[in-house]
């Protein structure tokens, strides 16, 4: 792809004896929308603060545009931050907030006015320039925070859960606006969120973090469809995990023993060997229910324990013979789903190739 704007090389961070980041290696390309995703306390904020310059790495190197920036303080880095609670200056109006960075750079008043007006227009706040932060709604404050950052033409914009304080509807709108803004500006966005749907829908690439380690980096589709670890599979979306072991390895397929049955999968990677323990990951929407008893290659039988109507879809919880419970998600179809009742025994199957087989470590 294009040139690297930020590189983290073997970056570690400790607070006292508490090591919160372990050897992080991460390249961020110019102009991309990168999201850091992971459970609370996994180190997302810490990575952002390292990039923005509020923390120093305990170990490793950080590069911005090819230049090592470990020792450069936040106020000298061309990286701007949008804080989670916005951190707008309460004593300044919107205009002055946005103009702050430009005034620090000693730009002349005219230039400042042109730039600030342009940015305020871009975030649709041109009529609010004279208001104080406390006279704005949450969404408006959010946009001031973004305007205040982008007006400085940063190379990288860093956003720590910028949408988490907004209500559901507003958050959806802002997601679209933010994405559009990023495309228009062409600035690299490094974005932190708790919301996996947000991450999937907005990002060019997603970094999944767990306990200060990178679990996987990839496009939303890669992350969702080809999780490289059980953690990623279970963290993103819902995953049915079937445990078993390898019965047989051939050139283009393997056989896996799950409970009492043996299943054959296309598999061409060479990593797996006979008797390895594996997890077979299946997304709920990839599972299907077979009403007839016709023999299929992948077929499990189980009892329906619960049926949850969700509007467009319906979730069925099914207890398998080996006590595993799986969830099946289907588009709701009245005539079809009327036939299902709790405690009914059904057959479940899936199309060839939708499964992900992970070595159980």
């Amino acid at each position: 792809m294009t040139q690297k704007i930020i590189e983290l090389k073997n970056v570690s961070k400790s607070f006292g004896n508490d090591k919160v980041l372990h050897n992080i290696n991460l390249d961020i390309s110019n102009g991309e929308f990168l999201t850091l995703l992971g459970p609370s306390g996994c180190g997302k904020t810490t990575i952002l603060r390292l990039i923005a310059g509020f923390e120093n790495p305990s170990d490793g190197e950080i590069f911005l545009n090819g230049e090592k920036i470990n020792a450069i303080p936040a106020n000298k880095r061309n990286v701007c931050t949008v804080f989670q609670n916005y951190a707008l200056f309460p004593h300044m109006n919107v205009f002055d907030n946005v103009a702050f960075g430009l005034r620090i750079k000693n730009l002349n008043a005219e230039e400042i006015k042109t730039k600030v007006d342009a940015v305020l227009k871009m975030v649709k706040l041109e009529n609010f320039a004279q208001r104080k932060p406390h006279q704005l709604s949450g969404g408006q404050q959010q946009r001031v925070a973004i305007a205040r950052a982008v007006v400085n033409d940063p190379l990288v914009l860093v956003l720590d859960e910028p949408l988490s304080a907004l209500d559901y509807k507003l958050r959806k709108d802002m997601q679209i606006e933010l994405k559009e803004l990023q495309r228009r500006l062409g600035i690299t966005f490094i974005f932190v969120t708790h919301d996996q749907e947000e991450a999937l829908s907005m990002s060019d690439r997603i970094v999944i973090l767990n306990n200060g380690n990178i679990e996987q980096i990839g496009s939303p589709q890669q992350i969702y469809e080809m999780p490289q670890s059980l953690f990623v599979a279970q963290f993103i979306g819902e995953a049915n995990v079937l445990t078993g072991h390898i019965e047989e390895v051939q050139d283009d397929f393997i056989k896996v023993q799950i409970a009492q049955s043996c299943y054959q999968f296309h598999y061409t990677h060479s990593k797996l060997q006979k008797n390895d323990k594996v997890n077979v990951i299946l997304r709920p929407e990839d599972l299907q229910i077979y009403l007839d008893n016709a023999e299929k290659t992948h077929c499990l039988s189980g009892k329906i324990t619960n049926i949850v109507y969700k509007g467009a879809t319906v979730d069925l919880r099914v207890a398998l013979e080996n006590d595993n419970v799986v969830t099946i998600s289907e588009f709701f179809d009245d005539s079809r789903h009327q036939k299902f009742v709790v405690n009914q025994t059904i057959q479940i199957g899936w199309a060839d190739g939708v499964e992900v087989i992970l070595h159980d470590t």
Partner: protein
Amino acid sequence: MTPSKANWLKKASITTISLWLAIFVFIPTLLVIATSFLRVGENNFVIFSFTLDNYQKILDPVFFHVFFASCYLALITTFVCLLIGYPFAYLLTQFSPNIRRILLLLVIIPFWTSSLIRIYAIKILLLQIERSLRFFYPDVSILYTEMAVLIGLIYTMLPFMILPLFSTMEKLDRRLIEAAQDLGATPRQTFMRIILPLTIPGIIAGSMLVFLPVLGLFYVTDLLGGAKNIVIGNLIKNQFLVARNWPFASAASVFVIILMAMLIFVYIKSINRFGGSRHEKVQ
């Protein structure tokens, strides 16, 4: 916080305050402690030879009486202030925030007012009362008695007790009281087991703010008391400025410092024991 680049603002602020406290608090305190071990010289000056006489002198009946009486007076003042102030502060917390703010303001105004002026004011009042009472009891005397001193001290120090108590009580989580009642505690039990323990840091802070200054308030005894009613403050003042016995005055001051150290120790213990945040002074 920021990358650890040394910056002059940080250095300047920390250096200034450290030097200031060192020069005007720490060193002077050491000087006083040192002086308390010296002898008085011929010309009212100190002689640099070590002695414990000044501390022995505290035990001398004449002076011991002052120390004892003054601590006793401070103790009674503290106790009465607590007795009046505790229910008062508690009642204040029962009001809606708006009314509470006004009532609190009424406590803060005297808190900020010069205690000298307030002592003078109570002198005028006591004078009036004394005059009125003399119509009926010609022999009655209020002013220049120990009672007058006590009233004056209580009057001056009461806001210093109420404010810290109020700030601890305000922070008290009302749900704890409700929880206690919910679990079947009677009002008495709720008070003894929940409210009282949780407000102990406030009680100690208030007691400290009352007890220690009382020992030094020489103008209260000056204005309201007779010749016999004096506190350590009067003693220090006289020894230092009139008798020119610096070592003894210093020893008396060290005595107060030791009392203070003990009270601070108790306060810190109580905070660790009964939780709660460090008491913040209400302005």
